[in-house]
């Protein structure tokens, strides 16, 4: 009897490897979370044959990257996780995420918006499939701004009409002390952060201190200065609050603000950011891709890739776009009638065409802090644009140098 049991156990043992579910970590809340969990449920309840179930776990956003970096190298991490692409370079270098281009075909890649999938590349490899894309765009209060401005001159004109500092009303509100929100002006004036020196250049040369960048800073100072159209000391919280209370005619923010707006009180409209009048280029915000990535320590990589394919499939993407108003990265979703009928989603889609993909390299992560400091200095008037940029570039160069020396003996 015992022998029979042992034999059966031995025979069934391989099946236990399949029984282990795929663990998926994400930082979604509210409607996005519901949509994702509905998709996971469809996978679990559907015809998946021998493929394992998916088990999802919601992790608070600010603990997410640290948890991934601590857990995966020690074998306690998830098999798949969804996160913004800005750490792809760091995670790839630390061997935390797995390159997936082995399973990809051109047809599969064509399903996604090119910029979204490009964001998830590092070096010559692809590290994830895009679930959604995020960029800032121009929110406007339809009662105060009947038609959105097409150029920055128009923007300033409309904003001035709506600004009354004594009453606490402003024409435009956005966090002007963060590079992420300042980027539209930076790229619109022709500035850059890293400039590629040829085809094979993976990182690019630092080009923070340039005349174009200084002009962009001067423009931002005009907007946010003592008698400008942007309130002092703005933050994302203030952006939402003022816009919700009707005290801001326009705002620059991303899709995350939608969930916080009281659409019964304010008629919200979203439009792509205007063209910079001085240069004729469109104001180009940073484009971020929310990627579904695979852990390098995953033990069922083939099955995990199939799960990734499912979660980023067109059908699931359309559901996410319709139910959670997520700007999804699948081309087919944007052809669906329901998605096309959503004016706000369509606005974000149009914004993508002029957005600049945020580099996911380790070098880019060093840029934020010094550049933000330069912005702060310019906004509170303690330094001029040229000086602030020069200091920022010097500081970034110092960090880059220290990163280089730290990697001596390691690979490129």
């Amino acid at each position: 009897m015992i022998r029979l049991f042992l034999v059966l156990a031995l025979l069934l043992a391989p099946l236990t490897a399949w029984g282990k579910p795929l663990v998926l970590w994400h930082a979604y809340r509210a409607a996005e979370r519901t949509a994702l969990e509905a998709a996971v449920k469809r996978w679990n309840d559907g015809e998946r044959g021998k493929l394992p179930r998916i088990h999802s776990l919601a992790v608070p956003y600010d603990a997410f990257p640290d948890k991934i970096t601590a857990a995966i190298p020690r074998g306690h991490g998830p098999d798949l996780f969804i996160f913004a692409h800005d750490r792809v370079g760091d995670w790839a270098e630390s061997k935390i995420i797995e390159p997936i281009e082995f399973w990809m075909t051109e047809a599969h890649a064509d399903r996604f918006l090119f910029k979204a999938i490009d964001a998830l590349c590092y070096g010559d490899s692809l590290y994830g499939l895009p679930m959604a894309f995020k960029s800032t765009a121009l929110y406007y209060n339809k009662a105060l701004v009947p038609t959105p401005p097409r150029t920055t001159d128009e923007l300033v004109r409309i904003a001035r009409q709506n600004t009354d500092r004594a009453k606490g009303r402003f024409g435009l509100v956005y966090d002007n002390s963060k590079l992420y929100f300042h980027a539209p002006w930076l790229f619109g004036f022709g500035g850059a952060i890293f400039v590629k020196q040829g085809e094979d250049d993976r990182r690019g040369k630092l080009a923070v201190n340039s005349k174009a960048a200084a002009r962009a800073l001067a423009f931002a100072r005009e907007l946010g200065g003592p008698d400008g159209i942007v309130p002092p000391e703005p933050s994302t919280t203030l952006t939402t609050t003022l816009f919700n209370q009707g005290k801001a005619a326009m705002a620059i923010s991303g899709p995350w603000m939608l969930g916080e707006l009281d659409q019964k009180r304010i008629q919200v409209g979203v439009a792509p950011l205007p063209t910079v009048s001085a240069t004729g280029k469109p104001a180009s915000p940073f484009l971020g891709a929310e990627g579904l990535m695979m852990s390098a320590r995953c033990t069922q990589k083939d099955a995990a890739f199939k799960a990734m394919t499912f979660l980023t499939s067109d059908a699931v993407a359309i559901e996410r776009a319709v139910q959670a108003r997520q700007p999804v990265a699948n081309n087919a979703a944007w052809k669906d009638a329901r998605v096309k009928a959503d004016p706000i989603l369509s606005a974000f889609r149009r914004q993508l065409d002029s957005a600049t993909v945020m580099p996911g390299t380790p070098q880019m992560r060093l840029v934020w802090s010094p550049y933000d400091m330069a912005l702060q200095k310019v906004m509170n008037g303690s330094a001029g644009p040229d000086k602030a940029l020069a200091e920022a570039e010097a500081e970034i160069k110092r960090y880059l140098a220290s990163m280089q020396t730290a990697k001596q003996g390691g690979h490129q």
Partner: protein
Amino acid sequence: MTRRNRALGAALGGLVAASLVATAAAALYLRERNAGEQALAEAPARSYALQLAKAVRAAGDDPTAAQAAALRVKARGERVQLAAVVVEPRSTKYRFLRKRRYLAHSDASRQRQVLDRRHAGDKAIYDLANRVRHEGSIIELHAPQDEPVEVTAAEPVRVGGKHHATAVVITRPAVPAPGTPAWPLAAGLALVALLGLAAGAATPKRYVVVAGGVVGFVLFAWWQLGKLEAFYQARAAAALTAPHPRWPLVLAAILALGIVVLGHLRLGERLATGLRRHRVAYLYATPAALGMLVLVFVPFGYGLALGFFNHAHGTYTFVGLKNFVEILSGGGRPLSHPLNFYFTLGVTVLWTGTNVLLHVAIGLALALVLKDPLLRFKGAYRVLLILPWAVPNYITALIWKGMFHHQYGAVNHVLELFGVEKISWFSHFGTAFAANLVTNTWLGFPFMMVVCLGALQSIPRDVYEAAEVDGASRWQSFWSITMPLLRPALFPAIILGTIWTFNMFNIIYLVSAGAPGGSTDILITEAYRWAFERADRYGLAAAYALIILLILMAYTLITNRMTKATEDTYS
């Protein structure tokens, strides 16, 4: 030597010793691992890969010739898999899509085939081929649990200066029989210990007891080493030399030397008698000490050692004192620059001093008012005043930040009511510092109030009654009776409060966020930013932490002398 100097010496000595031991252990461990990797580089897999690469290069573009050349590579031992892989860009649109096929394969049926997902192991080979293009030759050891050990070597094949193909060799070396390095170690240790004891033993009975202890220790060490065996087996599989690590031997030698010295100084004896005499004390102190050992001292040792290393993308390299030099030299920045260590240190000291002063003053004042047993609604006041401490500080800090907003903040509204112009709190150092100070005082005085209340309770009433009878005024009885009796309880709280305020991260980070330009950052927020916002430099952050530790220790030892807090206060 005065007692203070002895304490100072002991503390510093202990800290230096702990740092050295932790760093030495970490450095040795890393060096062993690197040595293992060095030995790995000379493993057979590597030479096969080089042979294969040479053969494929010689065969040129002819796949048949390449296959034939591959099969000729003399591979000793079983379970060796050879493959030469060609990877070429396929799509101009997507740079990650590439054509990949086998030029040669030890399994002849796969020759010229495309690498695809239906064959397990193809992905790993493809990823290797990709990496080789950028990293050059690779050799790796995979020792997954319950699966055979694999050594993988990959070499680039360069034709005409350009990368042409990758030669990949996967070997499954036979795992050698477990050796017994513990025997010589254990025997040597026992011998040395016995010698040491012979030098210092007094009576035969104690000799037997201590010898028994040493034997027990030796057996324990042997058992632990046996566990380490399993870990190093895998490395031994690939390494041709040094199958056994050397650092446990070094550690054992240090221990043996220590035992000899101790034996000679009769310290073993004194330790035993000491233990017997104070056994009750040790009994009471042990549970806490044990818990702290595992969960506090070990991470603490890790933190100490980390300051001597540099971290980049998961790899740690030993850099000695470089981090400390970088910090203490100001990082090449002028003294007035916020990122200069001395500037931040000055801000931190100012921050700590002003905070503790305000906390104690307000807390003590409130406690004195609230301790009056005749005051009504005392309970209500006490509970209400504890609320700042009770509500989580990550939300109240954000509320305070909102209250200091230039345009919409409550504080500016109140100032306007008094006719004062609105202040841009976070644009200047002084005002931003004040904003942080107000917030932290609001958060911190309840704690001091509670401590003072508790301490005031323990002062017996008849002492005050006696003073009143003698005709002392309220002020006199406060200074001559209350303050001295409060000291034993208050000074530890002040020292702890100082330490906490020195390391108060949340408020600085959430309220002023270092504005303007990083000037209100204190040492701990600097360290955090180095670790998590700028290039993940954990080593530099750990060096900062060690410096913070040294500063606080110096402070404590100085105030110790002034307050004699660790000694009896009984008169």
